[in-house]
């Protein structure tokens, strides 16, 4: 048994929760950030405890302050941030007022840290062995000891052929392997506390499962306390013993995992779990999305920071920040809400109609036909003996109007390249791609122009996909101008129509992209794609760059547009739960080939191919047949 299921098993049956001594004790920690001339509070009054042998998950979105909290434990805050209050104690010792040399002695020895992006966190000019030996020698190991231990550490974290690999450079390892190297450095001196800040965010799902498994195993074998920072509730559910939910710099709820998930006492926690699509529950018609977006750190609302988005907010929430209160019954499950004393009022999810398992067969003719497509990057050069290997190697697909086809796979499988070829950005090497009967290889100018209006793309990164120098109005009217779709007099009206289609107020037409939030920008990107009235929209990871609480809004938007306008959607995603929610048909891609294709309920319910099965097993949130979270 591999994957997060194993990690979950390792957690739940061997060690009781909250058993060991308290290794890390943070009380009322407050942090400020200096930007320009102002000091802004970024973390306010946060408390947490981690015991040995326990994994505490800190979950939050952008602006929640979770990373800064973690860095402050190691006194590694960036120069612009400073502690303005509270205490941080490691095994009873005051970390914040400790003299610098003592802190240096603790770092790497008693407390280890694992970061997010393994390539950037390793020195590219030093071998992996040198870097592991460094942490050992800094804390007293002799040269020989360090050399031997470095090799055995690589073995411990699962690097094959450690004797040879110890002399390789970071760029010679894959992403997952690099993260294992970082973990090796972090646990080299058997620390009592390990802090992991988004350790798997930059990694593929199957690789992620391996890393989480490793962390769980280390926790079990070494008894380390682990503080795990993440934005992904699924990971928390699978791996952690207790959880702290942060929002806008505040601790809004914490407690044992089961308690918090079964009986959330803060509306944010409940809404967050509700708005995340899941692999283990029936698919709903619409996700229950949280309106709005997480506040910018400069403009946090007074009182409870969540009140502007909270379905249960009342007057007091606007005026006063609720204190963290104890539940009358139950062990240390607390929430910062005026309503925390009682279970939250029931809020029937208005749109919770379940979707029938069998979503039916396509009714119309396919709008997109891909037959045996082969795509390759780069050209032959004089120095290459054979042509480069195809990135997409014989793929066939069909997409239908009014239906969504999901294309899933891990990084490097070719799904993005295929998407870019379908919209005409990358040429086909061989095979056929036909959209509404037309092909990109056509030489007729008029046909090409029509093709451009038939298929459009929504990009992953809302920050990059809009020209920063154009106001929203120009972004939306330019396609109308270039394709001469609408006479000049009608353009403004059409721009307003597009804005309302995606749920944005017309007043935003005058703004520039930098003035909009990520979710708003993504809506603009969708509106722009709709401007030419396409019949097929290819969405390349449309929500993965957005905050979790905003993702549901965009997912709902895409589904609504599909149903109202009869669009065909091709959604590329690595997040299986999003795909399961949105798509009727799914294709699974690996190394340039489609390994399995079919209706969603079959792929997710009864996967046939081994790769599909391993993807599902590795996805957070799918192992919960072992747990009951309702």
């Amino acid at each position, binding site marked *: 048994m591999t994957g997060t299921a194993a990690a979950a098993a390792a957690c739940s049956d061997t060690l009781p929760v909250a058993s060991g001594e308290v290794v890390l004790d943070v009380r009322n920690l407050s942090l400020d950030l200096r930007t320009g001339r102002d000091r802004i509070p970024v973390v306010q009054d946060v408390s947490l405890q981690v015991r040995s042998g326990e994994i505490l998950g800190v979950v939050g979105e952008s602006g929640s302050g979770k990373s800064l909290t973690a860095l402050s434990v*190691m006194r*590694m805050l960036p120069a612009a941030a400073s502690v303005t209050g509270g205490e941080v104690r490691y095994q009873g010792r005051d970390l914040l007022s400790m003299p610098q040399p003592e802190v*240096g*002695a*603790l*770092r*790497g*020895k008693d407390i*280890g*840290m694992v*970061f997010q*992006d393994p390539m*950037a*966190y*390793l*020195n*590219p*000019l*030093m071998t992996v062995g040198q*870097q592991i030996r*460094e*942490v050992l020698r*800094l*804390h007293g190991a002799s040269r020989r000891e360090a050399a031997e231990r470095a090799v055995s550490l690589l073995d411990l974290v699962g690097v094959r052929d450690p004797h040879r690999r110890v002399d*390789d*450079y970071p*760029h*010679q390892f894959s992403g997952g392997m690099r993260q294992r190297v*970082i973990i090796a*450095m*972090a646990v080299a001196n058997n620390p009592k506390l390990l802090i992991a800040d988004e350790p798997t965010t930059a990694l593929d799902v199957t690789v992620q499962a391996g890393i989480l498994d490793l962390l769980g195993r280390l926790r079990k074998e070494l008894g380390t306390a682990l503080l795990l920072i993440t934005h992904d509730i699924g990971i928390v559910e699978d791996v952690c013993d207790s959880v702290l939910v942060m929002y806008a710099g505040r601790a809004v709820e914490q407690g044992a995992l089961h308690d918090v998930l079964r009986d959330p006492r803060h509306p944010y926690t409940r809404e967050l779990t509700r708005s995340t699509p899941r692999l283990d529950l029936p698919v709903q018609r619409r996700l229950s999305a949280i309106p709005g977006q997480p506040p910018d750190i400069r403009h946090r609302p007074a009182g409870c920071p969540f009140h502007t988005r909270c379905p249960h907010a009342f007057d007091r929430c606007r005026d006063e920040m609720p204190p963290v209160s104890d539940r009358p019954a139950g062990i240390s499950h607390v929430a910062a809400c005026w309503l925390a004393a009682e279970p939250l009022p029931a809020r029937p999810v208005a749109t919770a109609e379940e979707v029938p398992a069998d979503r039916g067969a396509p009714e119309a003719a396919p709008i997109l036909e891909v037959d045996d497509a082969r795509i390759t990057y780069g050209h032959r050069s004089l120095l290459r003996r054979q042509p480069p290997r195809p990135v997409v190697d014989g793929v066939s697909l069909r997409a239908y109007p009014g239906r969504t086809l999901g294309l899933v796979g891990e990084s490097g499988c070719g799904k993005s390249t295929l998407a870019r070829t379908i919209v005409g950005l990358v040429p086909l090497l061989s095979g056929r791609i036909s959209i509404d009967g037309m092909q990109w290889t056509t030489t007729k100018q008029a046909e090409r122009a029509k093709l451009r209006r038939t298929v459009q793309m929504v990009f992953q990164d809302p920050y990059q996909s809009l020209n920063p120098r154009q106001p929203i109005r120009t972004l939306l009217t330019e396609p109308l101008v270039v394709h001469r779709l609408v006479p000049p007099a009608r353009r403004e009206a059409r721009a307003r129509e597009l804005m309302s289609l995606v749920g944005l107020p017309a007043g935003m037409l005058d703004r520039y992209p930098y003035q909009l939030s990520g979710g708003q920008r993504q809506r603009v990107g969708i509106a722009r794609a709709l401007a030419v009235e396409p019949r097929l929209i290819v969405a390349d990871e449309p929500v993965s760059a957005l905050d979790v609480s905003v993702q549901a809004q965009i997912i709902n938007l895409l589904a609504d547009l599909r149903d109202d306008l009869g669009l065909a959607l091709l959604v590329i995603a690595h997040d299986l739960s999003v795909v399961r929610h949105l798509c009727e048909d799914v294709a699974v891609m690996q190394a340039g080939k489609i390994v399995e294709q079919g209706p969603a309920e079959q792929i997710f319910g009864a996967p046939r191919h081994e790769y599909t099965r391993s993807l599902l097993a590795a996805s957070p949130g799918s192992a919960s047949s072992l747990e009951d979270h309702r």
Partner: protein
Amino acid sequence: MIRFVLQRLLSAVVVLAVVSVLVFSLLHLAPGDPAVVLAGADADPQTVATIRTQLGLDRPLVTQYGEWVGQLLTGDLGRSYTLGQPIGELIVQRLPGTIQLTIAATLLMTVFGLVTGVVLATTRSRLLRQGIEYLATLALALPPFVSGVVLIFFFAVVWQVLPSGGDASLVDTPASAIRRLILPAIALALPAVPVIAQLLATEMRRAYDQEFVLTALAKGANRRRITWRHVMPNSLGPAIIELGIRVGHLFGGAIVAEAIFARAGLGSLLVQAVQTRDYRLAQMLLLLAIAAAIAVQFVAELCIARIDPRIRLGGKS
């Protein structure tokens, strides 16, 4: 690594070849008949014709170029028209002066540039940083023809501690030779020092912000170790490339320095050649200077490859 070296070598050779064609054709780019230009405006047709046949200017360009390259490759650099001597001899005569100057300037540039860069990046004193940055802006405005004159004015005319120029043999009178080197070397190195220093400082600051520094910090390394073991090696790259470019440009700067400080060297020879229309000599010197500049940049790139394993070893293993 071998592949990288060969690639760069090939590139350098190609550039040199192209440049040689351009240098060769300079004479023919000038308006007018090259033979007339060489003979002088008021020479009689007889002289012009003699010159034309003597120098082979009546043959097709490609043949002339081919001959020229052929001679070059066999070591025959030609003969100076106005001075009568073989060009090779002239070069050897004048070489030492220029070489001494170049080496002295390179040393100053490297040492002061790198040291100032490190200081700029690591000092916590805001005063020191501001001060260095103001001096840097000033130094950038002091190209050799400006700083040379100023240096001569103060050190040779007003305070009279150093000679205002001239030559001396390093072998026979080392002290005098070195004294005459000081001012020109400073003048040449001066504008390069702030550029190199700022480049290094910028790269170091960027390296400090890199994530692997956080990892080192998390391991318990102190500031000193982080600076020397982690930040420095990762920041030297662009500074070395810039050094390479600057040293390459010294071959041009030396020309100016030799004019101002009245030194006899390859630079003054080149100027003299152009002024006396001794084009064969001028072309050869130009080619030599450019070849030297290209060679230096090639060496700089090799150094970078040596330091950075990503280049040295190529992609994934």
